[in-house]
């Protein structure tokens, strides 16, 4: 088997822009883009191949919706240990650290709870159902090491909260490692990373942040030369009841969506995984979101 990734047969579109090439494809249920500062079309194609391959690989492995994939096997182990590889172990380790740093509010075993809150305009779940689901949410019951993972029957893991940002960082890393002099902006549905600087002499990448009140038109323009950006928000997924809007970030400790969470939070950080986690944690802070982010000394923008 070859060391390098090979040509993907999944489709992508490539269009020429004056600053380089824009590549577009669909993965992880999001529109994915690559902005590549290069004149070389062949190179842009190679980059797109690397990106689509890696995005699909991660999706195939960690998607909740693919029956029989590694995540599905882990979630159907019924309490017995499952063999895992280094990558899965690292993600579990990261999830554990986030669980600790957020005092238990970020919990990837919250799958059963997430399933209850469907945010498709339907009603709020029953208290009894919520209590039942909450009993199955407890990351501290997930035992793992470098080689295997085990948790009680009935619990399930969901990497949805980190997989997309992880994918962005992985693709960004692979591209930067191979083409260290070419600035590429990776954008998977709003989670953005740009590890190779656009260079002081060039115009920075310009990223529009949605205004939750007026969707699909940029309210703020962020200029970014290097770094990562993630947005967490309820702009498109919410339930409205009695004039109260329930955002889609669920607090596993209560079983209910976080109260008084901002409509959207955008955070700037060195990589997408950090930015995404900070944005999620800010949402979990509810009212205190802005205070939390100022204390973290990161650039951010909140919409309420």
């Amino acid at each position: 088997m070859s060391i390098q990734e090979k040509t993907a047969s999944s489709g992508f579109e490539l269009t020429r822009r004056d600053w380089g090439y824009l590549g577009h494809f669909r993965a992880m249920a999001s529109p994915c883009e690559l902005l590549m500062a290069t004149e070389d079309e062949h190179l842009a194609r190679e980059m797109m191949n690397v990106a689509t391959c890696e995005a699909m690989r991660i999706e195939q492995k960690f998607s909740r919706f693919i029956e029989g994939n590694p995540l599905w096997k882990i979630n159907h182990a019924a309490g017995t240990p499952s063999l895992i590889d280094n990558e899965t172990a690292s993600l579990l380790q990261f999830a554990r650290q986030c669980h600790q740093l957020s005092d238990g509010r970020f919990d990837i075993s919250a799958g059963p709870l997430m399933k209850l809150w469907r945010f498709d305009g339907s009603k709020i779940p029953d208290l009894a159902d919520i209590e039942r689901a909450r009993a199955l949410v407890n990351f501290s019951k997930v035992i793992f090491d470098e080689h295997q993972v085990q948790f009680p029957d009935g619990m399930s893991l969901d990497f949805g909260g980190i997989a997309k940002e992880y994918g962005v960082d992985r693709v960004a890393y692979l591209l930067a490692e191979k083409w260290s002099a070419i600035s590429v902006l990776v954008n998977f549905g709003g989670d953005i990373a740009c590890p190779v600087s656009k260079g002081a002499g060039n115009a920075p990448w310009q990223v529009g942040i949605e205004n939750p009140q007026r969707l699909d038109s940029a309210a703020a323009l962020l200029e970014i030369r290097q770094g990562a950006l993630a947005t967490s928000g309820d702009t498109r997924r919410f339930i409205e009841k009695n004039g109260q809007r329930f955002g889609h970030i669920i607090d596993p400790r209560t079983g209910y969506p976080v109260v008084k969470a901002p409509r959207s939070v955008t955070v700037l950080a060195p990589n997408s995984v950090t930015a995404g986690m900070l944005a999620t944690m800010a949402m979990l802070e509810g009212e205190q979101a802005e205070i939390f982010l100022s204390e973290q000394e990161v650039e951010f923008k909140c919409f309420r």
Partner: protein
Amino acid sequence: MQLKNRSNISKALAIASCSLLGHSAQASANTEKPDDWKVDAAIMYYGEEDRVQAVEAIGNVQKAFGDESLLDMKLVVDSLTGASASGAVAQSETQTFTRPSGNGQYETASGETPLDDTFQDTRVQASANWAETLSPVWKTNVGVNGSKEFDYFSLGLNGGVERSFNKDNTTLALSGAYTFDSIDPVGGRPVAFSSMALRADYDTEEEYRTAFDMTRMAGSEDKKTMDMMLSVTQVLSRRWLFQANYGLSSVSGYMTDPYKILSQVNDTGTTQSYLYENRPDSRLKHSFYMMTKGALDAGVIDFSYRYTTDDWDLNSHTLETHYRYYFSGRFYGQVHLRYYQQQAANFYRPFLMAGEPLPEYASADYRIGDMTTYTLGLKFGQRLSGGHEMSYRLEYYQQNPENSGFDLVGQLQDHDLFPEVKAIIAQVSYSF
């Protein structure tokens, strides 16, 4: 509900993310490469019941240079002691044989298979191989190897090229090797079919020595081998892959075993003399090999079949399988089964008849006669932290030589001319 250590959270996250992304940089690579070095070491004991015993130690080091180059170096040291069958047949009387050096002799009791226990040798072998990825579809490799033991020296060069197709699902490889061997046997190379000089047949030491020297030729002998292999590897599905190889090997030079003899017997099966064997000076071999390997949820399984044929008319079939089962993420057990069957080389004969004209070539070495062998092995492995692994295996190897259709005359019928050889193999390995 406050988040604790508030200002440290972003820093802690940044560190955690580095560990996640740095570590997972190796996530999709085949080999783990902390510091780019990978070391495998093993020590093995091979012991035949009442016969040869050997200890072999191997150290293998791999270093990756970026994503495209790999250096592989190996050092092997092995040491052999004990006795192996000389090719002479068992007799109802005690037999005396002269040692290969001419200095001294050894005896075989009545009814026993004659075993020459002269051999105590240590061999050192070193090899280095460089593999280079030239492009997304082309790979190449080149290597050199050499080995030395007391009476033997070998030097070889090998090279190969690989081309992958079909999104890397199909790989075609062509490789070749050239090896030069030089043998300088203890006591000098024996003259083919000369009769072993026995001290008891001569009055004085000098006369014996002269006779012995007449059966020897000074100087070393060479052997040159040219090998070629064509290989196809094909991904069958997400879990199964398949490989088929065709190998061609052409050997020319000295292939006689200088330490092996044949008994020349009369009508009653009684030995009249011992003749040093003689094998052809060329051999053209073909091999056909197929294997399939499957990734199971909690294990790995593989099956392989090999057929070989050559111009010595020695054909063989080999069936082999390994089945590994992971008891946990850290511990596995593995079963190994191998079945081998070979047909005698056309110049193989268990003994010669006195009075009949000598054939052009003859050897009584049971290793090129009709034979069936069985191997049954068990291995256990433990995966330790940091990517280290330790394993131990125990195997039982039995060789069953068979009579390929020779009439056993006279007293030869009273003896087992094709005794089984039973061996134990024990090995411990460590890799990191």
